[in-house]
């Protein structure tokens, strides 16, 4: 399914559905044990070095495994210290298309800064896994680095099988998900989306840029207190979405239609009910649409309550199995899966995917070196030309906005982010 999404984006001229996790370290790490740990990781998860072979009319594609193969670890020396050279490197590799039939769907990059710090980037195609799988993967890599060279690595989890995955949910739940797929109207039917992205659909390869913002822990604690006062509990995700919608409305690309809607899809970690603590290199997220009218965005705390209520209503009505719904489409013919994916990526939405990650698992150190920051970066698929991720790490909130300057001018992006932070923290 995610390969289908990759193909749809590639045909629109974008490099595909590419993601990264960036782990900024306070010092240097030893490359030899890192390389050895990556090798062992690939033996445990052969999908990291597999190929995706496009198939005929019935299936999208299938995995071709290559036993013994490992993913690359690239090393690079940065010219200057700080985050900017890291972002420059990240955006450069993000813009290079993945050819999944010829190259590994993942690679590691270790960047050496002249001030003695290292940054590790895991760069991967979404067909392999999503951001929910990443934290535990980084944690596992860390444990492989630290474990004794001669010790046997812990046993690899059993290979995932989508049919077994689906069977873990009650039959009625699956049936309900299928039913909702066919009956639930998407929010964009209510009105055109209000967005930062210019209306012209951009085709062909374009350079990416990454803009970064950080909300410190003390400020975030005050924001949580404000949201708790308004909402009853620290509903940070909806508080954030309310400010994102309001900031979009202020820096919209074109005057909004009077029936315009603020529309996005919320990502949920959809780990099966009976699954324990195992690491999963796979896609385990689902998406659920949520929207608000322009009038509702006038009052920040009112919008927060409206979005919270609307999300609860959707969860009540629509079993939380968005992924299953797409899998349902996927299980049919190829032209069936194309339709929802094209709709997802080509229909204008304010943000295609509201992804609010809590990066908890990496912990305080990696390979014995303190972690200064960890965050996710995603290609510009939301809508084509813009992605915005909010990452919570050690009490801070880190925003990464990846955008195509031809779709969202840098001045508009910077003004939007500034407005978002000021609205959120005021």
């Amino acid at each position, binding site marked *: 399914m995610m390969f289908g999404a990759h193909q749809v984006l590639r045909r629109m001229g974008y490099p595909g559905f590419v993601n990264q996790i960036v782990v900024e370290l306070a010092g240097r790490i030893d490359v030899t044990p890192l390389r050895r740990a990556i090798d062992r990781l690939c033996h445990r998860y052969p999908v990291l070095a597999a190929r995706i072979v496009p198939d005929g009319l019935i299936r999208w594609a299938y995995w071709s495994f290559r036993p013994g193969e490992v993913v690359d670890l690239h090393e690079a020396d940065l010219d200057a210290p700080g985050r900017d050279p890291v972002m420059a490197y990240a955006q450069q590799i993000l813009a290079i298309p993945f050819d999944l039939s010829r190259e590994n769907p993942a690679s590691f990059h270790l960047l050496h800064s002249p001030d003695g710090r290292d940054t590790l980037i895991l760069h991967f195609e979404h067909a392999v896994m999503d951001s929910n799988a990443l934290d535990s993967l980084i944690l596992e890599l860390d444990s492989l680095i630290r474990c004794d060279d001669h010790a046997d690595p812990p046993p690899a989890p059993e290979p995932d099988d989508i049919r077994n995955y689906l069977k873990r949910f009650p039959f009625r739940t699956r049936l309900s998900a299928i039913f909702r797929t066919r009956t639930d109207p998407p929010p964009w039917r209510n009105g055109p989306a209000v967005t930062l992205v210019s209306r012209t659909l951009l085709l062909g390869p374009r350079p990416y840029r990454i803009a970064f913002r950080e909300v410190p822990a003390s400020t975030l604690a005050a924001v949580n207190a404000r949201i708790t006062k308004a909402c009853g509990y*620290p509903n940070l995700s909806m508080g954030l979405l309310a400010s994102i919608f309001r900031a979009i409305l202020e820096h919209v690309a074109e005057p909004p239609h009077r029936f315009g809607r603020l529309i996005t899809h*919320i990502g949920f970690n959809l*780990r099966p009910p009976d699954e*324990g603590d195992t690491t999963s290199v796979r896609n385990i997220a689902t998406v659920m649409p949520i929207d608000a009218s322009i009038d509702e965005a006038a009052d920040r705390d009112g919008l927060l309550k409206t979005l919270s209520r609307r999300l609860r209503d959707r969860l009540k009505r629509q079993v939380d199995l968005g992924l299953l719904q797409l899998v349902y489409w996927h299980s049919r013919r190829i032209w069936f899966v194309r339709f929802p994916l094209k709709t997802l990526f080509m229909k204008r939405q304010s943000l295609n995917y509201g992804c609010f990650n809590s990066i908890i698992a990496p912990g305080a150190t990696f390979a014995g070196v303190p972690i200064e920051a960890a965050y996710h970066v995603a290609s510009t698929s939301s809508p084509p030309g813009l992605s915005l991720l909010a990452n919570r790490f050690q009490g801070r909130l880190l925003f990464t906005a990846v955008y195509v300057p031809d779709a969202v001018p840098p001045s508009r992006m910077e003004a939007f982010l500034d407005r978002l932070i000021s609205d959120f923290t005021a």
Partner: protein
Amino acid sequence: MNLNAELRSTITTRFMPGRAASLTDDADLFLLMDSLDVIRLVTHLEKTYRVEVDDSEMIADNLSSVTRIAAFLERKRASA
């Protein structure tokens, strides 16, 4: 299995994979879980225990720990 143990099991397997050891009955769930997971947890409680949770009841006193959730569910059941 008593209600506390049942809730702890549900929360650790569904919403806190990989962090099971950190969950005690009085641990602050609002610090350990995503806000989206809190919303999913409430939906799960409504479905599993057949209770209606009003927006005004989504507060720390009712939801911020396993002990508080269990007490909240008992109160809801008693008043039903």
